[in-house]
């Protein structure tokens, strides 16, 4: 491997960028945007270089590891390292930041907060996102987990819509509550590690190797799980999400739903399952029920929404149900599917929120009823929105299909009837996407839409195009992601002591060709 501290640089660079942006003279808005965009592109380029040097063969191990003593008294280290799953989630995060900045180029002009502040908050958030996925010290993970709240709180509360204060506070309250529970479990975990090994530690691999008493596991599990279930969010902890997403700027909504919420499902897979395998199996029935309720309930509530952004938020509640389901069915298809789902959902939700944002800012309303016939006046906007919507409903050929199908197959293997119920979600998804498309994009064009809505600008197309390209590319060729995710999932499967159920009929060697 290499001695270059890839991950530390990926965390530090956006932070340095944030400071630089804040030091720019007041009113240098354009410069601030340019600095932010260039820097975030560089960070993404660095991520790609790192990903290319990542050894897929040992993707189950943590690579590019660094560890510095932080609070030696308690064994807390600033320790970073990535396996295949965290690698693709970091790539998702750093790729979305430049897209969000470019797409939202004018979103905060003339708003309450300063443009510099907005850019700096986004960059700070980026640092925290990379850190939260890269941490291999559980305490450090917690720090990043909580640190993410701060920029998001200000991004919603300062740059959001009319009910921004309410939404920001609700977001904060929910997250703090979860965070406190996690903190309690974290301390408990430290205590247990001290009891077992003699010296307390927060090192993930060491903790994952401990065999903790099942009852204790359950208590500790609950703290972590509730924090993640709020973050993801799972029903019934989800109601902060529609408010937060609807009141955010489109860019914030993308990072919030596309990346931050993934920390919840990522945490379930990495921390709940590996640290507390017995407790995870104990909780499996409950989680599966919650997940399936989320899939169906989220979709049904989405169908009933009258506001575009809230609708998209509820579709995500349904999608997070799929992701949590895949994690907890304890099959490699389910867990690899969920990992891929996190990436794919990030891209398709980003496309949906951004394009919806373009549409809403033109019309000055996010109510579905205020639109109609947009396809006539803005065909490119409508076309890209349709592709993003089709990705959300998991059309085969687009990326989300692969992950959703893997989750369903993985579920079906172990819990056939749960799989059948979850599969009903694909019909509901078609309804919420196409109903929204029909109401906003087709039919006669009202005069007010004709006057206000115009097609995408070059900048907007430039921001959206990479998302759509990735959505199609990963639909036909998910191999690069699956190749690095699979070994990491194998590690998790091993940790929870699960194996895929064999088929009813023993398979024969296939085909004669090659």
């Amino acid at each position, binding site marked *: 491997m290499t001695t270059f501290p890839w991950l530390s640089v990926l965390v530090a660079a956006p932070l340095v960028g944030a400071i630089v942006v804040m030091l720019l003279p007041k009113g240098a808005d354009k410069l601030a945007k340019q600095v932010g965009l260039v820097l975030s592109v560089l960070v993404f380029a660095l991520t790609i270089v790192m990903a290319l040097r990542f050894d897929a063969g040992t993707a189950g191990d943590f690579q590019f590891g660094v560890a510095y003593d932080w609070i030696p008294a308690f064994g807390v280290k600033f320790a970073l390292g990535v396996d295949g799953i965290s690698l693709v989630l970091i790539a998702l995060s750093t790729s979305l930041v430049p897209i969000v900045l470019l797409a939202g180029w004018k979103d905060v002009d003339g708003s309450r907060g300063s443009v510099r502040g907005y850019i700096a908050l986004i960059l700070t958030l980026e640092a925290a996102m990379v850190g939260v996925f890269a941490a291999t010290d559980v305490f450090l993970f917690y720090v990043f987990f909580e640190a993410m709240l701060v920029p998001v709180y200000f991004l919603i509360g300062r740059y959001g819509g009319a009910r921004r204060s309410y939404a920001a506070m609700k977001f904060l309250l929910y997250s703090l509550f979860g965070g406190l529970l996690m*903190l309690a479990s974290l301390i408990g975990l430290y205590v247990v590690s001290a009891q077992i090994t003699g010296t307390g530690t927060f090192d993930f691999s060491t903790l994952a190797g401990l065999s903790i008493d099942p009852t204790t596991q359950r208590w500790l599990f609950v703290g972590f799980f509730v924090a993640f279930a709020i973050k993801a969010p799972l029903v019934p902890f989800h109601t902060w999400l529609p408010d937060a997403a609807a009141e955010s700027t489109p860019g914030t909504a993308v990072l919030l739903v596309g990346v931050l919420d993934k920390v919840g499902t990522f945490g379930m897979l990495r921390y709940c399952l590996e640290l507390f395998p017995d407790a995870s199996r104990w909780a499996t029935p409950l989680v599966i029920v919650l997940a399936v309720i989320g899939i169906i309930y989220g979709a049904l509530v989405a169908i009933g929404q009258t506001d575009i952004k809230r609708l998209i938020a509820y579709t995500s509640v349904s999608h997070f149900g799929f992701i949590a389901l895949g994690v907890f069915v304890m099959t490699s298809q389910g867990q690899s599917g969920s990992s891929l789902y996190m990436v794919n959902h990030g891209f398709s939700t980003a496309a949906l929120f951004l394009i919806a944002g373009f549409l809403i800012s033109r019309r000055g309303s996010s109510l579905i009823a205020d639109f109609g016939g947009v396809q006539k006046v803005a065909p490119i906007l409508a076309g890209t929105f349709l592709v993003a919507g089709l990705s959300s409903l998991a059309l085969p050929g687009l990326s989300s299909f692969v992950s959703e199908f893997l989750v369903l197959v993985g579920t079906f293997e172990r819990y056939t009837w749960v799989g059948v119920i979850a599969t009903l979600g694909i019909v509901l998804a078609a309804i919420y996407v196409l109903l929204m498309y029909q109401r906003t994009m087709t039919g006669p064009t009202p005069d007010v839409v004709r006057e206000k809505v115009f097609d995408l600008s070059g900048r907007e197309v430039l921001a959206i195009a990479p998302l759509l390209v990735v959505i199609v590319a990963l639909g036909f060729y998910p191999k690069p992601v699956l190749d690095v995710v699979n070994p990491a999932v194998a590690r998790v499967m091993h940790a929870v002591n699960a194996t895929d159920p064999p088929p009813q009929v023993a398979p024969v060697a296939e085909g004669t060709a090659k």
Partner: protein
Amino acid sequence: MSTFSGALTHAADVAPAAVAASGLFSLTWLLIGFPLAGAAVLLLWGRRSDKWGHWLGVLASAASFVVAVVLFFGMLGQADDSRTVRQHLFDWIAVGTFNVPFDLRLDQLSITFVLLITGVGTLIHIYSVGYMSHDPERRKFFGYLNLFVASMLLLVLADNFLLLYVGWEGVGLASYLLIGFWFVKQSAAVASKKAFIVNRVGDLGLSLAVMLMFITFGSVTFDGVFAQAGSASESSLTWIGLALLLGACGKSAQFPLQSWLLDAMEGPTPVSALIHAATMVTAGVYLIVRSNAIFNAAPTAQTVVVIVGAITLLMGAIIGCAKDDIKKALAGSTMSQIGYMILAAGLGPVGYAFAIFHLVVHGFFKADMFLGAGSVMHAMNDQVGMRRFGTIRSWMIVTWITFGAGYLAILGIPPFAGFYSKDRIIEAAFSRGIVVGLVTVIGAGITAFYMTRLFVMTFHGKKRWTDDVHPHESPSIMVVPMAILAVLSALGGFLLAYNNAIFEWLAPVTGFEEPHLAISSLGMEGISLVVVIAGAALGWFLYDRRPVAEIAPAGNFLTRAARADLYGDAVNEAVFMRPGQYLTRSLVWVDQRVVDGAVNGVAATIGGLSGRARRMQTGFTRSYALSMLGGAALVVAALVLVRL
């Protein structure tokens, strides 16, 4: 591994194993590549391709047809057991034992479909150049047509069920785009959405089938599934079969998922020709015939297939009798004819080859008649009401003749194509049982009645035109494809069935058995011909000899039911739509009032803040900072305690 010896009783117990594509057959991917590239250029290049876009679309489809012909002759040059070719393109999805390659499979069944799709598809493309010449979005239309053809080709060329699924939904997407092509019309937008959603219900079936296959066989590739079909339990196979049937019902508009097809007429007429003849609705028949190894071992599922086919063939025919809209009457006939194919496919090896034969022949005559209907509409200011047509033959002699060939073909008048294909299905049905046989014969009689009604109301009888129409024959770019299809409708059946050519061709994939009948097949043909002529005579008497009312009479109960598509939509609305709307609205309320309220209430109690939240908001940041501080203190305290 078996070699077809020429004997006509042959069961494809073990499908021939595929050989890796080499030489000529490595061109297989181009079949999909051309139309896909066409679609990509036309849709991404945008208005810059407006001028020549339609010709590019035609070229892409035609190029695919040329490749298909070349491959077909290449296959003819191969021995029977090396005609199944697999082209491995790349590894698609691999997680654990779930291993799905991106492989194409060229065999006797798929090339038959490929020739039909690209051949008829190309004719429809050419026709559309003329039909859509005044539409400002013609380029986009051709982009969608290319996408449609590419998806359908992927559907029939896929070597595993998951890849088939990609083509399957691709077809759904293309039909969505084309049915809603005139999206400014609310009815078109609603119809396209309905088509997609009803199809998704079918896709649910296909999804479940694929998953069931995986847990049963550990594989979703054709070879992996079919080779093992014998070892699985019958109940597993029955469930797989029923799930596949649900999929087939969606795409092929079979009962109970038939409701989208009649609304799909909102699209431009060439779309109807494409959906009804060359693509889409044939997919369900393909799926069942392709999965013959499953169905052969699942008799219960087969019976359900036969029942669904029988119900749909009668429903479609009855609906066809009552429609005054020429396209909707034809749509009813498609339902009904696909019902014949599904029924035949449910009969097992005795019916598979006949189902495909009828599918091909139907592709000829249905495309012919839809394009003919488009030609009539073109002449009649886009009107579709047959009650305001009449005696058009004198103005549109070519359309009359070409439509006439399709009309005689669907009736099954010898020597027109339908005679050969439909009678084989009737024979096979009788070999299954008298009831099934009678359904097919009665269906043939009703078909003769409503098709005669359609034909004479349009081309014969008295002039009942609205004042502003001035019919004229369509331009040759539209007429030539119609003429080619008319020739195929006339001669195609005889040529394909000559010496049992198509059955022998398909046998290695589908198996083939001659039906055993109590009476001679000549006698059988005689009986069905008598029924057909009786039906036609009644139609001719009622709608040619007697005046046709310009405004539809109220009609009896059955007529009203048939006009309302036998209340399919009404049932869907009452059972699914309205309760569904009620459910979603209540859930939205519950989510806002109950779930949110409860969790907020708990949070408020814990946080010690009540409804004063809004006023407290500025103070709240401070309390956040405070709680962070408190948290940090807690951490340190705890850690210190632990150390002690």
